[in-house]
């Protein structure tokens, strides 16, 4: 029989295929969580947290079309909220997470207000301003009583509670890994549900044509600010967990600075802007390729440059070239590339029209181009 094979969306075979794919990804994470060593798990946890923030950013940038280079501020705001409450006020870390989420959601909505008037690069610059201002506020001596100023807040810890199967300090890495995985899965489910709903369509409508969206009855202001808020909240919860895992917060942490914003955006684009799996794949590529690249040549490469320590090494060159090459070979991100590869084996036919009774209803043809989303 000839390839590619046809599979109808929603049919039994299609479901089986989806389950197998899903199962393989789940298996990977479960196996990693059970068998990987400490540093491996630590790195995978970081990846999941960046991916969680990227899921939020993807809703905003990829789906709604509002460029933000300010998400490091929300990531950092979440981190600092937990750090301040735990470090300065002695809260239990778990209770700080909802506070982070709510606070970041609220701040995100306020920060989204300029998006009601500004577009494209103008909005991007305002978001850069947010990222820069956030770092400056962290360093500001008049707020040092709260943030610890340039020194930050140290000595945080979040040991696994007794109801978990984890054994105190020894299983710390696994505890953070499973927690991050659950948070990531929840955020992804929320995002994917949204994308496939009326609200999700209104997000894409805002991206594609604001005037038409408004005429269709989409409340531009509500959509923009709510998505900004949600996306900030996802970055915030990721930041909270990140701070607890790191055991400290300080202004120079890479992901609290503008570079963090840039990296998150890179993840979204690398993975495939607008697609559900994009943020995970993008974060995966970013974290592992960056670490591989920084191992090339001597010195500590890109990482060094952005942490403000010694610069040097060929790693930065390799990583820079890689970024350019990837956007060349994968215009719709890595997910787009994977879909294209899959299309050589299996062609997914759309669901048949829901109303066969219409007189001149013809069978819809499968889409001929690969489109992300």
């Amino acid at each position: 029989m000839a390839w590619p094979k046809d599979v109808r969306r929603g049919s039994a075979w299609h479901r089986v295929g989806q389950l197998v794919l899903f199962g393989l990804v789940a298996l990977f994470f479960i196996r990693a969580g059970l068998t990987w060593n400490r540093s491996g798990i630590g790195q995978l946890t970081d990846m999941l947290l960046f991916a969680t923030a990227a899921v939020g950013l993807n809703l905003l940038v990829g789906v709604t079309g509002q460029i933000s280079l300010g998400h490091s501020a929300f990531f950092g705001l979440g981190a600092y909220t937990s750090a301040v409450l735990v470090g300065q006020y002695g809260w239990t870390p778990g209770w700080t997470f909802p506070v982070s989420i709510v606070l970041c959601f609220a701040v995100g909505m306020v920060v989204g207000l300029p998006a009601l008037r500004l577009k494209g690069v103008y909005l991007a610059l305002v978001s850069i301003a947010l990222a820069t201002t956030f770092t400056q506020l962290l360093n500001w001596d008049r707020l040092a009583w709260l943030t610890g100023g340039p020194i930050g807040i140290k000595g945080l810890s979040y040991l696994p509670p007794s109801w978990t199967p984890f054994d105190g300090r020894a299983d710390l890495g696994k505890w953070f890994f499973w927690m991050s995985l659950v948070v990531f899965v929840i955020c992804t489910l929320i995002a994917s549900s949204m994308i496939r709903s009326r609200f999700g369509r209104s997000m894409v409508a805002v991206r594609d044509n604001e005037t038409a969206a408004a005429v269709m009855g989409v409340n531009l202001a509500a959509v923009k600010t709510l998505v900004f808020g949600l996306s900030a909240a996802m970055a915030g919860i990721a930041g909270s967990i990140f701070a607890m895992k790191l055991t400290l917060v300080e202004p120079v942490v890479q992901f609290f600075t503008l570079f963090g914003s840039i990296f998150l955006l890179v993840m979204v684009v690398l993975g495939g802007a607008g697609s559900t799996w994009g943020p995970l794949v993008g974060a995966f590529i970013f974290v592992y390729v960056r670490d591989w690249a920084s191992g090339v040549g001597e010195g500590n490469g890109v990482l060094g440059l952005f942490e403000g320590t010694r610069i040097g090494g060929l790693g930065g060159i390799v990583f820079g070239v890689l970024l350019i090459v990837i956007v060349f070979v994968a215009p719709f991100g890595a997910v787009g590339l994977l879909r294209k590869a899959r299309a050589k084996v299996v062609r997914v036919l759309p669901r048949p029209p829901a109303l066969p009774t219409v007189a001149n209803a013809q069978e819809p043809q499968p889409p001929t181009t690969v489109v992300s989303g």
Partner: protein
Amino acid sequence: MSVLQVQDVSVRFGGIQALAGLSFDIDEGQICGLIGPNGAGKTTMFNVVSRIYEPTEGKVLYRGQDLLDVPAHGIARLGIARTFQNLALFPTMTLLQNTMTGAHCTGNVGFVRSALRIGVRSEEKRMEAEAFEILARLGLAPLAYRPAMGLPFGTLKRLEIARALAAKPSLLLLDEPASGLTHSEVDELSETIHDVRDQFGLTVLLVEHHMSMVMGISDKVVAMEFGRKIAEGTPHEVRNDPHVIAAYLGTEV
């Protein structure tokens, strides 16, 4: 009863007077043609009714309600839908998704319910079925899963109409729906407009340069020039109005 009453509406952009005290009414179930040279203010009129432009003076009443109190996104829910002359589709969406977005005002799954997936499935199912029906009606069903980007102009013009109909409007504003269509396609379109008007009890406001179409299907025609009304009446009256012939129709009709 008048569905739409435009009363002394003026619009100025900087120094340009796009509309100068325009008034007219449309009655329930009528097809009203709006004609006039380019730049006469026809599209501006549409933009005022759909609340994209703020008029400098005047009032627009829809079934007695002042539209100027309604925000732009509230217009669709009142039952007013429109198409765009130069296409304002969602290029990355498929034809089906475009049409479903047109039905936005008929749904109610918002931010929270979409995040928690409460009631999403049933609403999607309903919207999809309705959108398919409309697409099939306009002969677009075979293209339902194609992205709008890159399809021929005329196809996209039909999609504009499908998307507007998806909102289940009671007043439909069509901005040059026939531009870029051949004569036979224009005839088909006239029939479609007539049919949907009868079937859904629509009131239609139509801007068009295709005289055979406007004169053929309109119950009433309003002719404009320089933001003013220069004639109003039955197609026959307007066609023979000397002002209209001088300003717009020329010799060959």
